[in-house]
């Protein structure tokens, strides 16, 4: 990377001003992505050699995860406690809670297991809002067109259509759970635009939409008859002799033991993979986002899609170091904040979809027009003082969380701009599902970020909070009915023996175990507190 302009020099040259020339951005999105988007870094991809997606290419670290050895053997299950439920939900974020609440409401016995605590998820961090076409000048059709266009026309169209049609009902359901939204003086929902939307459509609660959603859903689950197992990462799914999913093997971080949960239907809602730090990028993701669901579903034979496509959010905080990767809501760009390079020039239409804006930021930095703090920290300005100048008071009223972040970074965002750089944010692809959230494996439902298809190869702001509730409720409803008509079957980890045979035949290493459960720097594998859960320590 060529030398960018030093921070102090760039800051001295900066002055807030009301008008700045829009970017003369002539380059096509395709060209920009090919040359600068991290998905296209040369040499970062390899082909999958086993499983339903053999032959597809994706990031080498993801290939290693999907072709990893299991964490357990048959021997680990001898004497393990066995529990039973109708519907087992794996994951305690927004999608998992919505699914669990809906299935329980339909009369199913529901168990929800989560790696950490209930609500520890990416949902809680979502700031921008949730898309639903509620304004007069907007329609579900426009929402659909925006979603498919944003996803580069690579979306599963029936899924996207279902999601946009669910939008208004999702908002009503959330209000019925006790979630608040920002309203005007007549009580109408306030809406705002997002990158790639053709109408104001993002409803929100300040810049705390995800926090408000998660604390309400967590409270609703805690006050229901859903049995919650926390600190209980899932290490394997169970399959029966018809190759249907029949439950899961759960490990407990509390007593270092394994449990078998027999279930008539399993709903996987484990989220994304930001904490794998693909291509060495910082991430905006939660500590537990290690792609566990992908490998669990893949081993059982579930088909995946678009695994080579990730979203790098344009505005991750680049500096100071203790906050690097922290997300700055896209809402501030939709409200009219500009992005500026070291010369104070706008270099991209700030409301282009996220992949386009992220690639443009990387271009500015690679070509020496970025701002440099150290070898680890380069970025471009997010011009909050300019926004404040054009709309006095907007930061205080609409973006309190952002101002607080500024205070932590010791920057008064009303006076000084802040340095941003793209951060690994979202897994666009994932498990292939239908409109009920069913994967290609009978009995296995998948919802939320672990799935693929709805957002194609690029997700719009506000569509993930919509997706998790829309499909969470769909899967919860369907799974409850599916479970109602069935008896428990004998589940085993027979598929793990098949996996090991396949790995050996393909000449693949068994040195890596999956799911990862935690980022490498948490040092789970060497933490003596959890010796009982480490294969190397048991043998």
């Amino acid at each position, binding site marked *: 990377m060529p030398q960018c302009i030093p921070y102090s020099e760039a800051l001295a040259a900066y002055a807030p001003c009301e008008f700045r020339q829009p970017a003369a951005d002539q380059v096509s999105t395709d060209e920009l992505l090919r040359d600068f988007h991290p998905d296209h870094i040369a040499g970062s991809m390899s082909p999958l050699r086993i499983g339903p997606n053999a032959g597809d290419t994706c990031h080498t670290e993801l290939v290693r995860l999907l072709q990893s050895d299991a964490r357990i053997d048959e021997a680990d299950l001898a004497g393990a406690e066995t529990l039973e439920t109708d519907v087992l939900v794996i994951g305690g974020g927004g999608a998992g809670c919505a699914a669990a609440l809906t299935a329980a409401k339909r009369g199913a016995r529901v168990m929800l297991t989560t790696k950490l605590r209930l609500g520890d*998820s990416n949902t809680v961090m979502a700031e921008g809002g949730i898309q639903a076409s509620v304004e007069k000048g907007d329609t579900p059709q426009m929402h659909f067109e925006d979603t498919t266009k944003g996803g580069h026309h690579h979306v599963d169209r029936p899924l996207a259509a279902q999601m946009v049609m669910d939008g208004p009902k999702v908002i009503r359901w959330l*209000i019925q759970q006790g979630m*608040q939204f920002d309203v005007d003086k007549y009580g109408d929902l306030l809406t705002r635009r997002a990158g790639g939307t053709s109408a104001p459509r993002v409803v929100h609660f*300040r810049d705390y939409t995800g926090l408000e959603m998660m604390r309400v859903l967590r*409270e609703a689950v805690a006050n229901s008859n859903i049995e919650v197992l926390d600190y209980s990462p899932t290490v394997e799914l169970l399959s029966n002799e018809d190759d249907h999913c029949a439950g899961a093997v759960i490990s407990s971080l509390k007593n270092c033991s394994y449990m078998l949960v027999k279930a008539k239907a399993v709903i996987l809602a484990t989220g994304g993979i930001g904490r794998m730090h693909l291509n060495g990028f910082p991430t905006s993701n939660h500590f537990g986002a290690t792609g566990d669901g992908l490998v669990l579903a893949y081993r059982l034979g579930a088909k995946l899609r678009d695994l080579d496509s990730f979203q790098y959010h344009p505005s991750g905080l680049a500096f100071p170091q203790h906050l690097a990767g922290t997300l700055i809501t896209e809402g501030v760009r939709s409200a009219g904040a500009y992005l500026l390079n070291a010369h104070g020039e706008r270099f991209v239409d700030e409301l282009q979809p996220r992949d386009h804006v992220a690639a443009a930021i990387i271009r500015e930095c690679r070509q020496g027009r970025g701002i440099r703090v150290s070898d680890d920290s380069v970025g471009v300005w997010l011009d909050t003082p300019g926004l404040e100048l054009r709309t006095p008071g907007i930061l205080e009223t609409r973006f309190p969380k952002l101002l607080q972040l500024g205070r932590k970074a010791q920057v008064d965002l009303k006076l000084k701009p802040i340095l941003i750089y793209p951060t690994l944010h979202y897994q666009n692809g994932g498990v292939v599902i239908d409109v009920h959230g069913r994967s290609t494996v009978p009995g296995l439902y998948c919802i939320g970020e672990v799935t693929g298809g709805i957002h194609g190869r690029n997700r719009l702001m506000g569509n993930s909070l919509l997706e998790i509730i829309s499909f969470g409720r769909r899967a919860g409803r369907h799974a409850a009915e599916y479970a109602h008509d069935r008896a428990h079957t004998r589940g085993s980890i027979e598929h793990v023996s098949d996996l090991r045979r396949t790995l050996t035949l393909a000449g693949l290493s068994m040195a890596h175990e999956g799911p990862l459960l935690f980022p490498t720097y948490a040092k789970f594998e060497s933490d003596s507190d959890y010796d009982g859960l480490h294969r190397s320590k048991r043998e």
Partner: protein
Amino acid sequence: MGETGETLVNLNINGRSITAPTSLSVIQALWHSGYPRVKSIGCLQGVCGSCRVMVRHADSHEVKTGLACQLLVEEGMQVSFLVFPNPTHHAYDLTDIKSSWEVQARFHQIFPEADHCRHCGGCDVSCPKGIEVERGVELAAKGRFSEAGDLFVECVMCDLCMTACPEYISPNHVGLFSRRVSAYFHIRPSNLINRLEKLRKGELQVEI
């Protein structure tokens, strides 16, 4: 000075002596020193409430509470992670409250301790978000749920106020109850209702 010219400080986390650059948070300092830690880490952005800690700064005898992902390391600092308390014993289902006229009566059935506040200020001191917790409880007990709920906008449900309260009031759950009933009974946006009607009548479809 560290490798990159940063100032290094010595501190103690859960009984372990650690040396780390001043630019790091307590959790980053743990990782930096290579100590394993799996529990009590969450969003790393101060909104999930997982990383509750007690902290004593070098120049003070006072023990404070905070969130480890938001706390920058300092020379001589002593930090201790707090486990989560048991879930609150207050249980309710919004659909059991038949009308907004009943909310106040039901509140006192669900949270009978809310009237017993001793005004010790423990909740206010423990809150890492600077919320006026005690005042929120007082407002809720008076039936002013909308006002009470507004005070808890930034609440991350870290349960520190619950841990601090000698009367087992569970102030954060009082705050959340106040917010939830306000939405459940009073948010009725006409633009949303209008759109739902159009959808119900089948007037809006998506052409795939």
